């Protein structure tokens, strides 16, 4: 075995330049796939973290059954009333895996500066609880201030935030009094004064001139209700999302509550779309790398076989079996794959460390602020790439190697 290993490595060095090119092709391919993979991991983690923590939605949300389908037309019919919320809280209290839960009521209506008014959409939340959820963010963005002005706090129930576009449209500045109007659950028009605390950027461009942030109390007062439309739940561990959903679902049903629970990835359609898109991009990148690796290995091994035909004949004459010849070239190409992958690991580390050093920033889609661009190190992915590239090199070599093994010995020996 050691002899064959020796033979394989020395032969790789015999045509060092050609081997180097192949190794570099594999290494660059490896680095490309893994840097992209690391970037993808960053994007997925960021999107997940953004939805769960930064936007304060938690891992899952509990709704009255039908709210998501019918609630758009008739939201008030599908709200969770005080009694529902009390029962749900009771059930949630019993689970130490739940870090925190917080009610939310989304409202819509008109917002006015006294001269003109326009439509708004607002979520009414409990600021202190949202802050707790946000504090568990694992990303750099989570530590950034994503608004201008003062934070929302529980002691300012009339304080409100506005997307920058909406504030610009109505020429609101921090500290201004804002008139908010909406029909109550019983159908009367209600109006409340709020105080402008902050502006933020909408996560969805189309809503930049419509979004508002109010306290739960403010939203409930405006709608003249004590109900909420959902309860957001943050778990200690995101991996528990699915099992917890099932547990809560059955426990709540046992308490006679007709509710449905949606997890963060079901609710964040944006995440799913982006994930699908990146999966396709990743597939393309992998196919390109796949093609380059296969082509360069086939070329390298093919050339080596041409040059070493007489050596193959000699080895066969000395008693090496056909599978031995295949094995020799397979070993050589696997070494190429291995060395190439190790070069790829180094290149990936170089990309990763230079990004960690220079901390570049970018403005990703759906965010209107510069945020750090990151590439994560995903060792598991690198290990898989290494195995995949070695197997790929092996398979790519097996075709020419098989042909080499089938050569007539006499013909091979006479080859010059």
């Amino acid at each position, binding site marked *: 075995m050691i002899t064959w290993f020796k033979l394989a490595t020395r032969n790789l060095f015999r045509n060092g330049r050609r081997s180097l090119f192949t190794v570099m092709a594999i290494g660059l391919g490896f680095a490309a796939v893994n840097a992209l993979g690391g970037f993808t991991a960053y994007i997925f983690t960021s999107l997940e973290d953004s939805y769960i923590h930064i936007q304060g939605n938690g891992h899952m949300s509990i709704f009255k059954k039908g709210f998501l389908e019918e609630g758009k037309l008739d939201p008030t019919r599908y709200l969770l009333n005080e009694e529902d919320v009390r029962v749900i809280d009771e059930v949630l209290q019993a689970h130490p895996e739940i870090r925190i839960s917080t009610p939310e009521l989304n409202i819509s209506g008109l917002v006015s500066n006294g001269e003109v008014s326009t439509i708004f959409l607002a979520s009414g939340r409990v600021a202190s609880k949202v802050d707790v959820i946000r504090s568990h963010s694992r990303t750099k963005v989570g530590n950034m201030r994503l608004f201008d002005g003062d934070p929302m706090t529980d002691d300012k129930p009339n304080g409100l935030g506005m997307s920058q576009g909406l504030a610009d449209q109505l020429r609101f500045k921090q500290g201004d009094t804002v008139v908010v109007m909406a029909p109550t659950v019983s159908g009367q028009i209600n109006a409340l004064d709020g105080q402008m605390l902050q502006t933020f950027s909408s996560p969805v461009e189309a809503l930049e001139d419509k979004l508002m942030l109010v306290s739960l109390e403010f939203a409930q007062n405006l709608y003249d209700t004590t109900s909420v439309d959902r309860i957001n739940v943050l778990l200690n561990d995101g991996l528990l999302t699915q099992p917890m959903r099932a547990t809560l679902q059955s426990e709540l049903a046992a308490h006679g509550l007709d509710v449905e629970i949606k997890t963060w990835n079901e609710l964040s359609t944006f995440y799913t779309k982006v994930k699908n898109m990146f999966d396709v991009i990743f597939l393309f990148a992998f196919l390109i790398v796949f093609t380059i690796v296969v082509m360069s290995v086939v070329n390298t091994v093919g050339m080596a076989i041409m040059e070493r035909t*007489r050596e193959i*004949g000699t080895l066969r004459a000395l008693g*090496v079996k056909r599978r031995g010849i295949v094995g020799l070239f397979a070993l050589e190409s696997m070494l190429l794959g291995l060395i190439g992958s190790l070069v790829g690991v180094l290149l990936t580390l170089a990309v990763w460390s230079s990004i960690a050093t220079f901390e570049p920033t970018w403005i990703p889609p759906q965010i209107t602020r510069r945020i750090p661009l990151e590439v994560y190190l995903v060792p598991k992915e690198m290990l898989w790439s290494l195995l995949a590239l070695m197997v790929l090199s092996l398979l790519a070599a097996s075709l020419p190697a098989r042909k080499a093994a089938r050569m007539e010995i006499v013909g091979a020996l006479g080859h010059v």
Partner: protein
Amino acid sequence: MNTITSIGTAPLIELRRATKHYQIGENPVIALKGIDLIIQTREFVAIWGPSGSGKSTLCNLIGMLDSPTTGSVLIDGQEVNDLSDNARSELRNRMIGFVFQNFNLVPVLSALENVMLPLQIAGASSSVARQRALERLAEVGLEKHVAHRPAKLSGGQQQRVAIARALVTDPALVIADEPTANLDSGNARRIIELMLNINASHGTAFVFSTHDQRLLESVKRRVLMQDGEIGSDSQPERPAAQTRIAGSRP
């Protein structure tokens, strides 16, 4: 472990009406026209004749590097055509050593590693292979050059390495097809002497081919090839030898 594999009563090599045809485009080339030949263990056979007479083709059939178009080749009584490629490879490794006209050493391996190769193909451990290879290299007078790569050796030295490699498995037969064609006359003579000495001391049978008549002086059995046929055989069949060998191994 200095055993010679062929211990049966069957001759070491037997060709029966062996022919070899080649097709070059439209024209058939008959390289061998029905060869009958018996080679016994411990024999030293020179195959000589002009270029193109079929010497190499004959050597290749004897060495199982090629198979006859018709007729049969038997090694130790075993019909070669009945063997699988794997079985032939094993048999070659175990029973036959090869010395080639252009040496055919593996360029990336040292002299020692080249000589170790046949044993390692057979699955011997490195230490055993190294020990035996060193002995063989000493026998061919190259103990000082064991670490050299082939490119650092002269033609004569390379051919000695090749002979050491051919002998390292203690084969019953060494086939040397024009081993001296790429050597000057002095080196050629020394290579033939070396082979004769090994034949005398170890009893290894040799089949070597040459187109150079001057190298035949000390060889008793000479097979002349002419146009794909045996023109003459100085000691054909040798039934006496067969009896002697059979008698010497009860």
